[in-house]
């Protein structure tokens, strides 16, 4: 775990299996019939991505991914979906050309980038021996309080604003009788 120097190179079987499972779970998010299985697939995707980080040696990123993404954001999604108890939704509205066009654009972009990946020598060789201390918690946190000090503070304010906003939204729910109901 503390070797420090790892040679970049071929992908191993573990990474391939985890990556493909993550993609399968991502397809599950889009294609599930019920919203709950979508949310659970989202959780699976986020969790499996964390394993990709672990395989890279980026332990701190993996832990943050599990703790915040899988452990908090995905829980929120599952929670809200269960709370609202949604009916299975329609997959897509037919006859909306713009949406179809955009979906086609997304697919085309994917195809183009994957085709580009096949070009040999596209990426710079990079550092043959990648130094894992650059991905350690210490290096990242040092980066936070030196290079990214201003964005760090700004993110703090953003989260404060989000907390206040959520509290205000939650308070507005409490008295629905006073508000005019919208059309269904």
């Amino acid at each position: 775990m503390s070797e420090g120097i790892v040679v970049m190179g071929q992908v191993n079987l573990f990474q391939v299996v985890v990556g493909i499972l993550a993609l399968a779970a991502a397809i599950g998010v889009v294609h599930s019939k019920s919203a709950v299985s979508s949310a659970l697939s989202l959780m699976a995707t986020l969790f499996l991505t964390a394993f990709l980080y672990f395989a890279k040696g980026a332990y701190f990123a993996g832990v943050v991914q599990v703790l915040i993404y899988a452990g908090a954001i995905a829980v929120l999604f599952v929670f809200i979906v269960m709370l609202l108890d949604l009916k299975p939704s329609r997959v897509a509205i037919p006859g909306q050309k713009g949406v179809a066009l955009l979906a086609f654009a997304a697919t085309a972009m994917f195809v183009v980038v994957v085709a580009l990946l096949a070009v040999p020598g596209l990426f710079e060789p990079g550092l043959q021996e990648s130094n894992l201390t650059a991905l350690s918690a210490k290096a990242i946190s040092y980066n936070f309080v030196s290079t990214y000090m201003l964005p760090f503070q700004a993110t703090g304010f953003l989260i404060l604003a989000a907390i206040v906003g959520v509290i205000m939204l939650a308070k507005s729910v409490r008295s629905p009788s006073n508000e005019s109901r919208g059309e269904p």
Partner: protein
Amino acid sequence: MTPLLWSLFLVPLVGVAVLTGVPVILMVERRGSAWLQRRTGPNRVGPFGLLQPMADAIKMVFKEENQPARASKFLFIFAPVLAILPPIVGFSMIPIAQPFTINGESFAVQIVKSDLSFLFLLAITSLHVFAVLIAGWASNNKFSLMGALRAGSQMISYEVAIGLCLVSLVVSYGTLNLSEIVTLQGAGSRLAFWGFFMQPLVFLIMWVSVFAECNRLPFDLPEGETELVAGYHTEYSGLKFGLFFLGEYAAMYLASALMATVFLGGYNIPFVSPDQLVSFVEGLGLYGDQATWVASALSAVSFAAKVFFFMFVFVWVRWTLPRFRYDQLVGLGWKVLLPLATINLIGTMIFSFLQKGAY
């Protein structure tokens, strides 16, 4: 013996230790509750009723398994598995005894020796809530769903307080490595370095939050019998219920082990530093490696005693305090514990800045 081989040996050892600990605390809970309430308690199976947990386990294995109609089959089976995995995996991060040496080479009694073990532990335990949510959803029963939603909001609320406690502890210890935290607490054979004396407020907040995280009384709203039948595991029976039960008690063991590690000096024996312990054993006539083996075993006993102390308090509180109301529970988490933890964090930061200066 290589370190890898030792870790592989340690994995089943720790797993079995946790799983055998569950019947022990079950017995303590049943006899202890009877003692606290001036009843007799189960005393028919075996001498003094000691085989009662065994009988319970056998009953659970042979019970018929029901599956509610129109429930999601995969998720219904998946939830109990998810309930037992995180607490047992979490034990891989806990340093259980002080390191011993074989031919001068040091072996730590900890399965995963990571610099981020504290964070790893919290990350794994944060997945426990999924088991509850999935179980409640997959049961296709409104009481189960209500219990699951209660459990979800409760666990998320108290995780915030635990996260802030973690930051306070990290500021005062300066590391996220649990074995380093234990080493720091054992230094100098004084109790003053124990987390309990360094961060008493954090100790209190975390203790209360741990009760909520484990869904134990006085915070067992997710399974409040008078309101929700049995909460999220109403529809479960037989072995699947057994897994939930095991998972709940394993989570309590993990929480107790974490509290003992972070606040009560882990495997350290009070007033005795690890080196003093080794030299004490050497004074009994053992030398070299063997002295470290015995010292390691003694420290493991000390750790187990601390864990059992916390486990006993779990039982004690369960049979002493009544259940909270739901708004009281959430209010305690957000309006009392969270501000207290924040104030403590700011205080810790100021103190640490005055002590160490800017980095």
